[in-house]
């Protein structure tokens, strides 16, 4: 079993499947559907095996059977009653498990989100308009002051843009529009980066086809 892992056979299968998915570019076809469905089966199988070895066995079976921590039966029962969703009459039983999990993780996220996303970022926004660092020359201070004030004004403008209790008319309207332009520039930056991201994925696949698959072919002859 072990020897097959990285032999030519597997490289061909991967190459064949890559072409099957690329064929969707031409049009939706049976080959694409087959590859996609097989991948769904493999991913589900992968998940179940990995969950068993990394979560259920060490945390539930071992704790209950070997370490004698029987309180781990609680999450086990909660988890199993989730499966009552398949039984129409007892479907409501699964709500207890859902309520425990969703309630617990929501409660956990309230202070953390307020602290990490709101307090942390608000503190990051509080910077002085003017930076008088004697080490750097006059011009550098001027430039960094303009930058600093642009960031602070931009952040405030974007926050005003997302305010819905104040009518965006007159001065506030123009200030909010400045915020919207900052948001557009931010989306421009994201757009530029997304191009690189999508292209990297394509480069990765074509590198695989032109290098690994070709090498596998060459090793056959």
């Amino acid at each position, binding site marked *: 079993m072990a020897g097959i892992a990285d032999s030519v056979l597997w490289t061909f299968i991967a190459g064949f499947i890559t072409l099957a998915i690329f064929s969707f570019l*031409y049009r939706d076809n049976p080959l694409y559907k087959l590859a996609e469905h097989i991948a769904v089966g493999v991913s589900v199988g992968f998940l179940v095996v990995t*969950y068993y070895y990394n979560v259920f066995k060490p945390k539930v079976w071992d704790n209950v059977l070997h370490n004698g921590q029987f309180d781990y039966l609680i999450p086990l029962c909660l988890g199993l009653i989730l499966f009552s969703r398949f039984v129409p009459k007892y479907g409501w039983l699964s709500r207890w498990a859902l309520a425990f999990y969703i309630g617990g993780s929501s409660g*956990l996220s309230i202070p953390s989100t307020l602290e990490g996303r709101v307090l942390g970022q608000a503190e990051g926004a509080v910077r002085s308009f003017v930076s008088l660092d004697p080490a750097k020359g006059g011009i550098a201070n001027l430039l960094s002051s303009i930058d600093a004030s642009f960031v602070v004004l931009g952040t405030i403008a974007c926050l005003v843009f997302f305010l819905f209790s104040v009518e965006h008319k007159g001065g506030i309207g123009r200030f909010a529009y400045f915020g919207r332009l900052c948001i557009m520039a931010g989306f421009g930056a994201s757009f530029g980066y997304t191009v690189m991201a999508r292209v990297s994925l394509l480069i990765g696949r074509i590198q695989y086809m032109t290098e690994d698959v070709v090498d596998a072919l060459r090793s056959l002859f």
Partner: protein
Amino acid sequence: MGFLEWIVRLQRLDRRIIFSFMFVAVTVPFYLNWPPVEIEVSREVEDAYQIIDRIPPHGDPLLLSFDYDPAAAAELTPMAEAVLHHCFSKGIRVLVISLQYTGQGAGIASEVVPRIAAQHGRKQDVDWAFLGFQPNALIAMLQMGEDFKRTFPTDYYGTPFDEIPLVESVQNYAQIPAVLTLAATAVGESWAIYPGSRYGLTVIAGVTAVYTADIQPFYQSGQIKGVLGGLKGAAEYEKRVNVLGKGMAGMRSQKTVHYMIILFIALGNIAYWLSRGSAK
């Protein structure tokens, strides 16, 4: 009017012709070793390098978290390889985990880490250990702040936590000099928001290019100490560690495709303004 009218008619060009242009633009640089690419190491990559470089060898391990699935492997696996080369060449110990809920991040790690470790002759469970995976990333991150052993009772291969020499002195984040999270989603920033603010953990993020722009606020506010952004970030780290990796090889194709897309946008807009002009 021939040329301008030709551009307007181009709009109805069949999509598949554009696809073939794309394929050519990506493949040509593999063989022609053109165009030349000159990369500078940016500040956020340098910060990340310094933090990892300062970790004493054979001491407390760097926590490396594979929080992505194969869809982002093209950008993040070269980063993982560059960092692993850096750590293993200097004898820095690496504790590998994965918090990607489908478990596929662990699938990638179990292939990449042993391969790079073997190249440097590093032994499993002494120089590197792979503790495997947990489904809920936020809860696992917080649990490790209290007790690694409770979060990972056994490693990915089933070895109990107590039998791994590397983690003998590792109990919680107090013994972790820094965590490098390789993430394609908001899991990257969650490291800064959840364990970062609660346990003061030093967080470095290796993110897909899509996410680089969105993670800037955390880098500026200091909640994230270093950022590796997309394939370029991998190329920069490879250059900093002078390792020949996939990051650099891909940059030439990035260049041809980037300029082709800029050309497409320009052509499209010329046609757009022409047809609007003639329509009025």
